[in-house]
C-alpha cells in the first residue's frame, strides 16, 4: 500500500501529516519540538524512516534532531557547526566587513544513497556535511573560500544557504544557493565550487549581471533530468539547460514573477510550479488570490491553478522551502503558508484542498512517497 508522509516545519514546532495513496484522509502528528522554530525536516531517500530536523530558537540556539522510525521518536545529535579555519568576513548590509557567525541551519539535505550522510545549509552561508548520521559536522569550506566569499552580502532574511540539490546521476555534483550571493555548483563532491549566475540580471545591485550578489530564492530540478534547473529568483523565474552555466528568463505570462517557492513535477520534467507573490515589499498573493501557476512547457506559458484555493482576502506568503511534490503515479503537489495552512493536490495541481488550516506559520514542507 503506497502512501505519503508530509514533513512540515513551522515557527513553533514540526508536524507530520500522513495519508494513503488516495491523499484524501490525513492523520496529523505533532507538534514535535513544541515552541521551537523548525526550519526544515527531511527524510533520507535511502531509508525513509531516517529523518533529520533543524530545530532552533533565539534563546537556545541550534539543535539537530534525528529520527530512525519515521518521526515517532527523536534524538538530538551534534549541533556543533564550527567554520573551518579562520572564518574571515563577508559584507554587512552597509558594505562593511562583518565576521562570519553561525546562526542557524536553514536546510537539511540527506544523501540520495546513504542515510548517515547529510548536508546542512546554514546562516551565515556555509555548507556542512555529516557522514555519521549527524553525530559530527564538518564544513565544506571550498565554497566559502572559493574567492567571492568576502563580497557576499545578506538578504533581508539573513545570509542563508537555503538550497542544496544533489545530482541523482552524478554523485559528485552538488548545487547550492545563497541569499544574496547566488547559485554555486561543485563537480567534485563539494571540494571546489564555481558561481553559476550567468544570465541572472538583478537591477537592484550595482552591477546587474555580476558574478555574485544575486538574491536567488530557490532552485528545483526533476530527478530524471538533473541537467535542467529552474530558479525562482527574487524577481524572475529562470531556467538553465546546462547545469546552471547559463540561465534565461521564463517568467512569460506570470502576473508577477516575484516569489519564493518553485518545484518540478515528479514525472513531467517540463511541468513547473510557482506561487507568484505581489512584490518584494508586499509578501502576499496578487489581489488577495492564492494561485499556484503551472507551466507544462518548461516556462513562459503559465496557467493559474485556483480550484480549492482561496480567491479573495488571502494575504499569506509561501516561503522558499514550503513546496514539494510526491512521486505517486498521479503526482501530488503540496505547499504551506505563513497563515498555517498546508494545501495538497493529488492531481498535479488541478484541484486543491487544505490538509490542515491552523498551524503556526509554515517554514518548510517536504514529502516522502512511501511504498
Amino acid at each position, binding site marked *: 500500500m503506497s502512501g505519503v508522509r508530509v514533513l512540515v516545519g513551522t515557527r513553533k514546532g514540526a508536524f507530520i501529516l500522513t495519508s494513503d495513496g488516495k491523499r484524501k484522509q490525513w492523520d496529523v502528528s505533532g507538534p514535535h519540538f*513544541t*515552541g*521551537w522554530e523548525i526550519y526544515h525536516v527531511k527524510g533520507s531517500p535511502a531509508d525513509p524512516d531516517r529523518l533529520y530536523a533543524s530545530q532552533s*530558537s*533565539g*534563546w*537556545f*540556539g*541550534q*539543535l539537530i534532531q534525528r529520527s530512525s522510525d519515521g518521526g515517532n521518536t527523536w534524538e*538530538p545529535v551534534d*549541533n*556543533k*557547526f*564550527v567554520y573551518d579555519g579562520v572564518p574571515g568576513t563577508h559584507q554587512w548590509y552597509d558594505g562593511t566587513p562583518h565576521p562570519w557567525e553561525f546562526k542557524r541551519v536553514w536546510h537539511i539535505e540527506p544523501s540520495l544513497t546513504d542515510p548517515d550522510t547529510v548536508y546542512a545549509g546554514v546562516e551565515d552561508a556555509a555548507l556542512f556535511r555529516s557522514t555519521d548520521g549527524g553525530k559530527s559536522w564538518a564544513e565544506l569550506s571550498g565554497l566559502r573560500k572559493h574567492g567571492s566569499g568576502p563580497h557576499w552580502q545578506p538578504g533581508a532574511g539573513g545570509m542563508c544557504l537555503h538550497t542544496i540539490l544533489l545530482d541523482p546521476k552524478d554523485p559528485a555534483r552538488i548545487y547550492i544557493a545563497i541569499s544574496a550571493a547566488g547559485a554555486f555548483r561543485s563537480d567534485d563532491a563539494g571540494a571546489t565550487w564555481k558561481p553559476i549566475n550567468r544570465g541572472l540580471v538583478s537591477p537592484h545591485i550595482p552591477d546587474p549581471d555580476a558574478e555574485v550578489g544575486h538574491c536567488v530564492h530557490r532552485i528545483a530540478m526533476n530527478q530524471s533530468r538533473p541537467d535542467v534547473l529552474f530558479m525562482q529568483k527574487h524577481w524572475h523565474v529562470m531556467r538553465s539547460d546546462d547545469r546552471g552555466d547559463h540561465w534565461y528568463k521564463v517568467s512569460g505570462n506570470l502576473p508577477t514573477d516575484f516569489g519564493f517557492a518553485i518545484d518540478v513535477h515528479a514525472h513531467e520534467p517540463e511541468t513547473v510550479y510557482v506561487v507568484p507573490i505581489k512584490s518584494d515589499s508586499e509578501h502576499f498573493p496578487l489581489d488577495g488570490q492564492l494561485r499556484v501557476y503551472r507551466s507544462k512547457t518548461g516556462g513562459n506559458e503559465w496557467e493559474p491553478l485556483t480550484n480549492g484555493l482561496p480567491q479573495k482576502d488571502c494575504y499569506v506568503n509561501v516561503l522558499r522551502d514550503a513546496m514539494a511534490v510526491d512521486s505517486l503515479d498521479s503526482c501530488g503537489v503540496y505547499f504551506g503558508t505563513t497563515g498555517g495552512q498546508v494545501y495538497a493536490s493529488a492531481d498535479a495541481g488541478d484541484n486543491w484542498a487544505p490538509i490542515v488550516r491552523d498551524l503556526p506559520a509554515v517554514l518548510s514542507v517536504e514529502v516522502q512517497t512511501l511504498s
Partner: protein
Amino acid sequence: MIRVVLPAHLRILAKVSGEVELEIAGPVTQRTILDALEARYPPLRGTLREYGTLRRRPFVRFFACEEDLSHESPDAPLPEAVASGKEPFLVVGAIAGG
C-alpha cells in the same frame, strides 16, 4: 549538592523534570555548574553558551538568591547559598520576542 532549575524547553531536551542536582568538586561557579550540566546532559551543549567562545547566549540569564548573576565573571564564586544547595541556580530564558 547544587540545585539547578532549567527552563521548560531545556528540561524537555534534557529529559528531566523538576530540579537538576549536580555534584561539583571544587569551586562552585557559573562555569563549573555549566560544565557539569553539559557533561551530564550532552544535548544541552551549545544551548546555554556558544561553542568556541563559551559566551552566554544573549537571551539566557542566570539568577540566584534574587540576584541577576548573568554579567558576573563565569569564574566568580557563586553565593554560598547556591554552593550549599540551600538556593537553586536558575537558568532563565529572557522575556523577549513573541
